[in-house]
C-alpha cells in the first residue's frame, strides 16, 4: 500500500497478456480510478513498443521474443528480476494476465508471481488463457504444463479457454479473443465496487481478500437483468457457461465465494432471499458465501458479479474420497464398507478411463462420497 492508498497492478505478461491489459486500460482505466495501474511485460521489444499500456517492462536481453519456449520466458524474467521487483513494489493486489500458447506468458508469469508474493500482504492472482480447442496437441500440452507450473506459485488462478462460451460463431475473430478479457474486467469491477461504494449489506475488502487468498482454481462471472426476478436471473446469467470462466471443475467445489449485487432501492427481500436460496441449494451449503448489496438509485438493472475460489483440480478432488472409509447403511443397522481399490470390479486389468485428470472407472458415488443404503 502506497501512502495508505490501495494499489492494484494489472500486469500483462507476453503478447497475449499485454494485449489484454492494453485493451482493458484503454476502455476502463477512467472508470476504475487511480488505485489501478497497468503494466505490460514482454521479451519482444517491438511487440511491447506497439502496445498502448502505460507502463512497459522489457525482460531478457535479446529483445526478440522466446520462439514459444517457456524456458526462455522464465530465463528472461530471472535476468530482469530487479526490474520486476521494482515494478511490483508496494502492490496490494497483483493480477497477472497471460496467454499460455507462447513462451513469455507461460514462462515468465510464475517468476513475476513469486516476486510479487515476496511483498508482505500482497495477494497474487493470475488470469490465464488456454489455447482454442482446435489448436494442435503440442500447443495444448505445452499450455497444460505451463498452467501446472503457474499453479505451483500462484495461489489463485482463473483459467479460461479461448473460444469457450461463444454461441454465435459468426462474430469477428478478434471479439472472440477479447471475450477472455472479461475475467479480468469482472474482477477489477468487483474490486472497484467493494473499495469505493457504500454497501447496504457489508462485504468489506478484508472479506474479499479472504476469498481472493483461498488457493485453488477460481471462477468469475457477471450477469445483468431486470424485472421481478432480476436478482435470480442475474445470478443465473453470471454462472452460465457463456458468462463464467469455466474450467474442468464445478462451482459446487468452491470453498469460498464473493457475491456482489448492485441495483436500485427497489430490490426486495424476497428477491434476495429467493436468489440466495436457489444459489445455495445448487452449489451446496459447504461453500462460504460473502455477499454485498450495493444500492445505487441511478441503476436501472440488477448486476451481479460472482467470484468463487478454492476449487481443486479434479484429480486432487477425487483422491480423498477413495482414501476415506465410507459408511453404508445395512438392513436394520449400519455396516462399514471398506476401502475399494480403483482396480476392483469389472474393469480390473483394463486401461483406466482417465479423462481430464479423473479416473472415471471409479464409481461416481465413491468419488462424490455419496451414502448408499444396503
Amino acid at each position, binding site marked *: 500500500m502506497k501512502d495508505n492508498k490501495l494499489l492494484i497492478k494489472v500486469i500483462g505478461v507476453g503478447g497475449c497478456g499485454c494485449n489484454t491489459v492494453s485493451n482493458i486500460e484503454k476502455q476502463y482505466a477512467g472508470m476504475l480510478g487511480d488505485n489501478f495501474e497497468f503494466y505490460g511485460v514482454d521479451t519482444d521489444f517491438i511487440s511491447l513498443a506497439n502496445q498502448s499500456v502505460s507502463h512497459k517492462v522489457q525482460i531478457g536481453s535479446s529483445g526478440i521474443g522466446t520462439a514459444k519456449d517457456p524456458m526462455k520466458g522464465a530465463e528472461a524474467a530471472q535476468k530482469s528480476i530487479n526490474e520486476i521487483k521494482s515494478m511490483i513494489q508496494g502492490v496490494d493486489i497483483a493480477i497477472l494476465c497471460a496467454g499460455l500458447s507462447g513462451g513469455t506468458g507461460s514462462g515468465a508469469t510464475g517468476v513475476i508471481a513469486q516476486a510479487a508474493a515476496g511483498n508482505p500482504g500482497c495477494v497474487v492472482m493470475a488470469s490465464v488463457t488456454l489455447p482454442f480447442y*482446435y489448436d494442435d496437441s503440442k500447443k495444448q500440452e505445452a499450455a497444460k504444463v505451463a498452467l501446472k507450473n503457474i499453479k505451483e506459485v500462484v495461489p489463485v488462478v482463473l483459467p479460461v479457454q479461448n473460444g469457450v462460451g461463444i454461441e*454465435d*460463431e459468426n462474430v469477428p475473430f478478434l471479439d472472440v479473443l477479447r471475450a477472455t478479457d472479461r475475467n479480468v474486467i469482472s474482477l477489477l469491477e468487483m474490486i472497484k465496487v467493494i473499495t469505493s461504494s457504500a454497501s447496504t449489506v457489508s462485504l468489506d475488502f478484508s472479506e474479499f481478500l479472504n476469498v481472493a487468498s483461498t488457493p485453488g482454481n477460481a471462477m468469475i462471472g457477471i450477469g445483468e437483468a431486470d424485472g421481478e426476478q432480476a436478482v435470480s436471473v442475474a445470478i443465473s446469467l453470471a454462472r452460465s457457461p457463456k458468462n463464467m470462466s469455466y474450467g474442468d471443475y464445478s462451482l459446487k467445489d468452491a470453498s469460498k465465494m464473493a457475491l456482489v449485487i448492485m441495483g436500485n432501492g427497489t430490490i426486495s427481500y424476497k428477491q434476495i432471499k429467493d436468489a440466495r436460496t436457489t444459489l445455495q441449494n445448487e452449489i451446496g451449503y459447504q461453500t462460504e458465501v460473502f455477499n454485498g448489496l450495493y444500492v445505487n438509485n441511478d441503476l436501472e438493472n440488477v448486476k451481479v458479479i460472482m467470484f468463487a475460489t478454492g476449487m481443486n483440480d479434479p484429480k486432487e478432488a477425487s483422491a480423498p474420497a477413495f482414501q476415506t472409509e465410507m459408511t453404508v447403511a445395512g438392513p436394520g443397522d449400519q455396516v462399514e464398507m471398506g476401502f475399494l481399490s480403483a482396480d*476392483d470390479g*469389472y474393469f480390473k486389468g*483394463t486401461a483406466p478411463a482417465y479423462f481430464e485428470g479423473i479416473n472415471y472407472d471409479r464409481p461416481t458415488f465413491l468419488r462424490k462420497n455419496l451414502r448408499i443404503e444396503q
Partner: protein
Amino acid sequence: MAKEKIYSAIDLGSQTVRAAIGRLLEDGSLEVIGYGTASSEGIIKGRIEDANAAQEAVKKAVLAAENDVKARLTFRMEEVAVSVTGQIITGEQDVTTVSNNSRDGKIGEKLLFDIDSAFEERFTHKDRKPIHIYVTEYVVDNVRETSQASVLEMQGEKIGAKGFGILGDSANLDKMAGTLNNAGHTVDIFCFDVVADGYSVLTPEQRQSGSIIINAGAGSTDFAFWKNGIVQFIGSFPVGGDHITNDLALGLNMPFKAAEELKCQYDKNETEVRVGGKLYKTRSVDTIVQARTEETVRYIADQIKQNGMLSQIQGGIFLTGNAARSSFISYMRREFSSLEVRNAYPIIPAEADNNNPEEVGRLFSPYYGNKFQTDSGSSTILGMLAYAAKEDLHTTKKSSSGIFKFFNLL
C-alpha cells in the same frame, strides 16, 4: 449406378457384437438383407482386451448374419466396415490453403481433391490416423462457403479451407484390424459410431439443419454435431452402461451379471427390487445410477454449450444406444428445455423412400418388420451400411478422376 453392390458391416460393441449385410440397388437405395448378433466378449470400453474372445464373438455374429441372408442370396462377409467408439477417437480442426493453377482461373474438382489430400496429410500423425475428414468451410477471395457445390466454378487464385478430422488411435485400430483379419475379414473402412448413427436415425434435413446425436454405449458415451450435411464436432465421455453396472456391483456388493439385471429391472415406483433371491433398496440403486447419469449428461451438455453448438441446433438432440432407454433423456431435457430432445431409432421402412433420390444409401428392408424401428442399439450397424455405400461411391468418383481417395461425403 453401374450395378448392384453388397456391403458388410460389423459393430464391435462392448455389450453386443452385430453384423449386417446390405444390398445397394441401382436407384441408390440400400436394402438390408442380413443381420446377426452375438454377446460381446473380450471387448471392454471399446477396446479389444481379449483378441481370441472378441474373434469368437465376431464369428458368431457374422455367421448369424450370413445364415440370415434373405432374397435367395448366398453371401460371405469378407471386406467389412467396422465401428469404433470411445476414447480411441479424437476430433481435430485445421486449416489449409491451395493455389489455383487452372488456366481459366476457375475452381474445379481437382483443386477440391487437392484440399482433401492436404487435410489427409495434416490429420495423419505418428500415433493417430484420420478415419473421417470433412471440409467444413471454404474461403475464396474472402467469400465463405460451406459446400463443395458452392465453390465449384468460382474464380479465385487461392482457396482456403477449414477441415475437421475424426482421428483414431493407430495402435487400437491396428489391433481391431488384426482381430478381424484373424476372423477372416479385411477392414475396408472404420466408422465412428455417431457418424454411422447420423445415416440411420437422421433425415438428410436433420443432418443439414444442425442436430446432435448422443450414443450411450456400454463403454463410452459419444456425441456428434451434424450441420450442413457433415459432422462439425465430436466428443466422447469415457463412461457407458458398463460403468453403471460396475458401480452397482461394487456399491451393493453383488456379481456384475446380477448388477446388470438389477440395472435393467429396477423401478423407481417400487421401494425394493429382488434380484437373485436378494432384495435391494430402490433408493440405493437409484442413487448410484443417477450419480453416473447426471455426471455424464452434465459433461455432454457443457461440451455442447461451451463449444457454441447451442444456437445452431435446429434439428434437435437425438439419443441412441443405452441413452435411448434410461433416465438420460430426463436429464438432457432438463439441460435443454427449449430444444427437442428425443430417443431416436433407425429410419428403415419396408420400401425405399424415393423422396430424396440423390441420397445414396437410403435404408429400407422388406424382411424385418418393425425390428429395427424399436431397437436403438441397431442404429450404428445400419448406419455403417449406408456410410459404406456413400464412401464407396466417392472413392470411385475420385479414382475415376485419377485421384486416389475422396473423403467428403455430401
